[in-house]
């Protein structure tokens, strides 16, 4: 077969003078992780808040929360990415819009990517948090109230601590999804890992070496995340409290 294998390509100098091609991939995974982590912070904060609000007795708050989730779930991530990158600067008041448009790469791609991933994932986190709280026996809320706790206190001390333990596995999946989804930002110019692998392929024609390296790096990151989360699960485990799982779930 006519393919010239050259695994030494990683140690050859890259055309932009920044070092060897391997360095490109390292820089790529750094941007991937940075984007993913910042977006995850946003996703957790927003998602936990909205998920919790969707379980309160206030009907219109629940409906707003539902609408929020539906909007982010029913539009493809790539389309949302374009909206944040191309459309948002035009819709903002002149000052903010211009400021956004004047950002230089890589930040011009970075911030829209972080915001896009953050909001997109926050809707999914909200779903998990809501499901986790609603999976608790109804008596828990009543027991809290019977003690005299206010609603926020009941959430803080009774419901949320249990709900989070239950949803640790699906939350881990969401975190891995954010890492994978960061690759979509290559379409708006973010030089994360997949973008770097593609660039390396375009410059060197060593297609399979470049993509194999990227694949291995993603797998390693996945494994590290899985092990880290298992460690976290063990640390916070409460005997007798079983976590979610078992039923079939869709997703990416």
């Amino acid at each position: 077969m006519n393919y010239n294998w050259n695994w030494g390509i990683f140690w050859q100098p890259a055309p932009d003078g920044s070092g060897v091609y391997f360095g490109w991939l390292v820089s790529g995974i750094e941007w991937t992780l940075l984007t993913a982590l910042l977006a995850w912070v946003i996703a957790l904060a927003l998602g936990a808040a909205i998920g919790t609000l969707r379980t309160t007795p206030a009907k219109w708050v629940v409906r707003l929360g539902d609408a929020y989730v539906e909007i982010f779930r029913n539009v493809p991530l790539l389309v949302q990415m374009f909206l944040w990158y191309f459309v948002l600067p035009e819709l903002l008041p002149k000052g903010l819009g211009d400021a956004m448009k004047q950002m230089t790469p890589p930040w011009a791609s970075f911030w829209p990517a972080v915001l896009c991933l953050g909001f997109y994932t926050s809707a999914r986190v909200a779903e998990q948090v809501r499901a986790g709280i609603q999976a608790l026996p109804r008596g828990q809320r009543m027991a809290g109230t019977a003690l005299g706790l206010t609603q926020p206190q009941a959430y803080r001390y009774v419901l949320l601590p249990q709900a989070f333990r239950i949803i640790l596995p699906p939350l881990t999946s969401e975190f891995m999804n954010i890492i994978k989804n960061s690759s979509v930002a290559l379409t708006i110019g973010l030089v994360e890992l997949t973008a770097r692998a593609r660039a390396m392929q375009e410059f060197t024609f060593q297609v399979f070496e470049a993509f194999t390296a990227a694949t291995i790096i993603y797998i390693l990151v996945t494994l590290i995340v899985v092990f880290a989360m298992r460690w976290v699960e063990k640390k916070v485990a409460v005997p007798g409290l079983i976590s979610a799982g078992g039923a079939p779930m869709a997703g990416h």
Partner: protein
Amino acid sequence: MFSGFDFDVIARSAPYLFKEGMTFTLTLTAMAMTGGIFFGTLLAMMRLSSFKWLNVPAAAYVNLMRSVPLVLVIFWFYFLVPYIGAWIIGAKEPVRVGAFMSSVITFMMFEAAYYAEIMRAGIQSVPRGQVWAGYALGLNYWQTMAQIVLPQAFRNMLPVLLTQTIILFQDTSLVYVLSITDFLGAAAKIAQRDGRLIEMYLFVAVVYFIISFSLSYGVKHLQQRIAIIR
């Protein structure tokens, strides 16, 4: 805020968007769903089998597909399929496979891993006692699967399989990275040609929203109708 926008461009380009773009998106979704469920079923059965030489490769494949971004998989198959095609037909040069064919294969094989997991979880969610009750009556393995386990598993997994298909429908937009003209690609072309990014992208978002939302509403409805009362 909305002055200077030309929403007319939507009306003018709608025929192109839907006839070229949306048909591509829907065709790709349908083909990937069919192939994905077919291969997913095979994978699920391999994973559930007690033969190590079946369930280990299947598990490895599923875990690989789930660890790697879809964008990367799209690139992989785009470059790999010509070589595999050459190897299959014994040619010396990589076979010329178009972007369309490669994306069909990509999505089929990628989604198969997700469908397989849904089916496996569905089968395993049938309580073990049901299997025992079947055996206690004297039914053999195949009878127990066909009469007792699979009917229940299917009712459990159908809504989730359909939800996964809706996700697949949205994911097809990623063929953009191969410059293929799906619904989003068509809109991007018009947007760049006419300088109407905002109108076109907002329109695309709205259309995807309406379709996905209606479909998931339908799935929710279906779920209530076929749920098994335990």
